[in-house]
């Protein structure tokens, strides 16, 4: 069962996508690009070139390189658009009946045939990427395409070996990509500023259809015009400054073009960009360098009129649709140029609405085509809608910390388990306190349940291995189990979905977590450093007890002093002071450990091990809890008995 391919067959560039795992996925071309230039050429040797490769040889072969064939498909020879293109395009356009044909290598081809070549490459690349045969497609067309143009596009697909299951409008595809087809009774505007054309459409989303109420635009206004403004400006400025016209030198012009493109992109995120092209030209008084700062303000000044030019068609489209801007519920941005802050600002101002641009504007139409393909394929219907757990689930560990086991937004059903250990020597039971929430401290989260696992064989702290497992099923029922690996004893609790927080409480919880993020972080760090300090105090005292007689008197005294100092400081909740005292103690402990190693003359005794452990134990305890099935992870179960 092969997939239906969603194709955005653009004037300058084309893109394709399929549905994978219920989500649109853009397929890259053989060359590794997410878009493919809509260009076809026949080389001198009769070889057919499509896409990036055709673009690269365009300059050497202009009569046999066909671009923007979308402007010709389905049109009559007498059409104004056709006549205009005949005058400006380097390739030959001839009349064929009422329609048009282009001449490639002295052979006439219909625009359908040329588009079929582009579609053919996309089909082949898609098959290479997916490893499956592709025989069906959904292709997008501009909303203003006539029946003849739509049929011609369908024919192009057929010639390419694709059964075109549906032709959909580009703005509709954009709406599908955002899932807006679900917004029944709403009006959506689509602002599409591509490489060479501008289109604006008003969509009416009803119970079963997405209808295009009005469409307008400018077929010769696009990103390329914006680029040209910047390039011309740079050349003019340099000429003014240095008296050299960079456009006359091939390499210099190339460098200016590339630098302008880079600056344009940077200025979408920064207020200023520097163009730095050393040795751009030579003159009698030595080499010249192109170094200039372009501010976003300057760029906006250069293209302001172009952006404002797009607002006229928006006004007209609204008028034709009979709607006011206030009646438009959503605005979608399509086309790379819409990444420019000025464009976004003007569009937002015009419609008075927040814009939708989260889907990559170069890919949104192809994504939408694949969504339609998925619906036709029945993919979307059969996919089980899975839930995610809205809040993090975890347990309380040493110090009142909330340790997560299942992070929020995890798709369910799911299970996770982790190994924990005890906080005190001879602790024979652990309490599992199940929590729901984002706060790092257990007391700030919601208690879902508690239970106790007892009957554990006595052992030093940190030695027992208690595996805690969380299993959350598709209905939101949580099973928490605790198993002591040594004794095999286990205990569990079942928490039903309704025990948790309600919708509004969830939102409130999330907000509070954000607001308190800073102080929560501090609190958590305090606890962690205290835990660390406690562990080091404990192991240091143990070391003194067990190996005190093997230490030099002054070292032992120093160690005892440092331990006392740490014991005092750690109660004050002063993170920095505790850290310092901990550092001091670790240093002394390590010094002693090293000395003991040296005096023990090669015999690695258990006391040596504990000496170095004393220094390292502190570091280990401070580590974030990691899932490690062989080692007791340093998160201790809080146990009331142990206190």
């Amino acid at each position, binding site marked *: 069962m092969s997939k239906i391919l969603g194709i955005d067959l653009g004037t300058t560039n084309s893109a394709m996508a399929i549905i994978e*795992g219920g989500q649109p996925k853009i397929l890259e071309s053989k*060359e*590794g690009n997410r878009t493919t230039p809509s260009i076809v050429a026949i*080389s*001198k040797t009769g070889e057919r*070139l499509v896409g990036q*490769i*055709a*673009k*690269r*040889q*365009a*300059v*050497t*072969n202009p009569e046999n390189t066909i671009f923007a064939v979308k402007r010709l498909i389905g049109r009559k020879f007498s059409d104004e658009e056709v006549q205009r293109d005949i005058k400006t395009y380097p390739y030959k356009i001839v009349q064929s009946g009422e329609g048009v044909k282009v001449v490639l290598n002295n052979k006439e081809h219909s625009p359908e045939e040329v588009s079929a070549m582009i579609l053919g490459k996309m089909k082949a690349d898609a098959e290479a990427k997916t490893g499956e045969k592709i025989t069906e497609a959904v292709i997008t067309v501009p909303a203003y395409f006539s029946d003849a143009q739509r049929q011609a596009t369908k024919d192009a697909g057929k010639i390419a070996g694709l059964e075109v299951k549906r032709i959909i409008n580009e703005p509709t595809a954009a709406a599908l990509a955002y899932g807006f087809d679900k917004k029944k009774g709403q009006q959506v505007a689509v602002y599409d500023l591509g490489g060479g054309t501008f289109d604006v459409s008003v969509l009416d989303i009803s119970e079963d259809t997405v209808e295009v109420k009005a469409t307008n635009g400018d077929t010769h206004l696009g990103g390329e015009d914006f680029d040209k403004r910047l390039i011309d400006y740079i050349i003019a400025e340099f000429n003014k400054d240095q008296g050299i016209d960079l456009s006359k030198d*091939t*390499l210099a012009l*190339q460098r200016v073009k590339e630098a302008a493109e880079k600056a344009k992109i940077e200025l979408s995120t920064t207020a200023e960009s520097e163009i730095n*092209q*050393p*040795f751009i030209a*030579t003159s009698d008084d*030595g*080499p010249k360098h192109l170094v200039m700062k372009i501010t976003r303000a300057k760029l906006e000044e250069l293209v302001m009129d172009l952006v404002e030019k797009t607002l006229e068609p928006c006004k007209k489209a609204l008028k034709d649709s009979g709607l006011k801007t206030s009646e438009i519920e959503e605005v979608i941005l399509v086309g790379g140029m819409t990444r420019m802050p000025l464009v976004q600002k003007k569009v937002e101002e015009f419609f008075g609405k927040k814009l939708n641009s989260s889907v990559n504007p170069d890919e949104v139409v192809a994504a939408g085509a694949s969504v339609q393909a998925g619906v036709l394929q029945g993919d979307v*219907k*059969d996919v*089980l*809608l899975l*839930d995610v*757990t*809205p809040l993090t689930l975890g347990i309380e560990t040493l110090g009142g910390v909330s340790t997560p086991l299942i992070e929020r937004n995890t798709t369910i059903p799911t299970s996770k388990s982790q190994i924990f250990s005890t906080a005190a020597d001879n602790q024979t039971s652990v309490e599992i306190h199940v929590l729901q929430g984002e706060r790092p401290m257990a007391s700030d989260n919601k208690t879902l349940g508690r239970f106790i696992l007892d009957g554990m064989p006595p052992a030093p702290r940190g030695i027992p291995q208690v595996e805690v497992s969380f299993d*959350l099923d598709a*209905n*939101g029922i*949580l099973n928490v189990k605790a198993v002591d690996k040594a004794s095999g004893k286990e205990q569990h609790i079942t928490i039903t*979905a309704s025990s*948790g927080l309600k*919708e509004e409480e969830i939102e409130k919880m999330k907000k509070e977590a954000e607001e308190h993020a800073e102080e929560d972080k501090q609190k958590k760090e305090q606890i962690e450093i205290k835990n660390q300090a406690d562990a080091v105090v404990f192991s240091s005292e143990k070391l003194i007890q067990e190996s005190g007689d093997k230490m030099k008197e002054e070292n032992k005294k120093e160690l005892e002093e440092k331990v006392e100092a740490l014991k005092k400081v750690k109660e004050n909740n002063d993170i920095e002071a505790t850290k310092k005292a901990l550092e001091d103690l670790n240093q002394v402990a390590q010094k002693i450990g090293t000395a003991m190693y040296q005096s023990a003359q090669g015999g690695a005794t258990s006391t040596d091990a504990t000496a170095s452990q004393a220094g390292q134990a502190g570091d280990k305890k401070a580590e974030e809890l990691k899932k490690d099935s062989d080692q007791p992870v340093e998160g201790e179960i809080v146990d009331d008995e142990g206190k």
Partner: protein
Amino acid sequence: MSQKKDKTEKKKKPEDYKNLYTRALADYQNLQKETAKEKEEFARYVKSNMIMEFIPIYENLKIAVEHSEYDNQWLKGVEYVIKQFEDMLANNGVQIISPVGEDFNPTEHEAVEKVETEDKKQVDKIVKVIKQGYKMGDKVIQPAKVIVYSLKK
């Protein structure tokens, strides 16, 4: 935890469930394989991107040397720095595409200009390399920018 109802309409038989489960499991395993592949590809992509950021600096250094007025030890030193760059590229599997006098090949070259010639033998040969190209393995990460001979009409 919120609950949503299943959106499936007709009642499913046990075999249907087994089938869906098997497919989901298979999808997951395939995703794992694909993720492993994508990770590898991504690592290569990030590497080539990083290298591409260095390329303009290396190219400008070469241009600077071309413009040098003096041929002395200092210049030699800079040439050695350039060699360091070239060694770095070679060590990372990057080959330089510099097709002077070769036949134009759009898989590796981009024609930015053409020059007319009456000599039929020269047609489609590269006149000048404006900017070197680069490739990593089979992948052309940047085509060479060239001027090509074309037949005078």
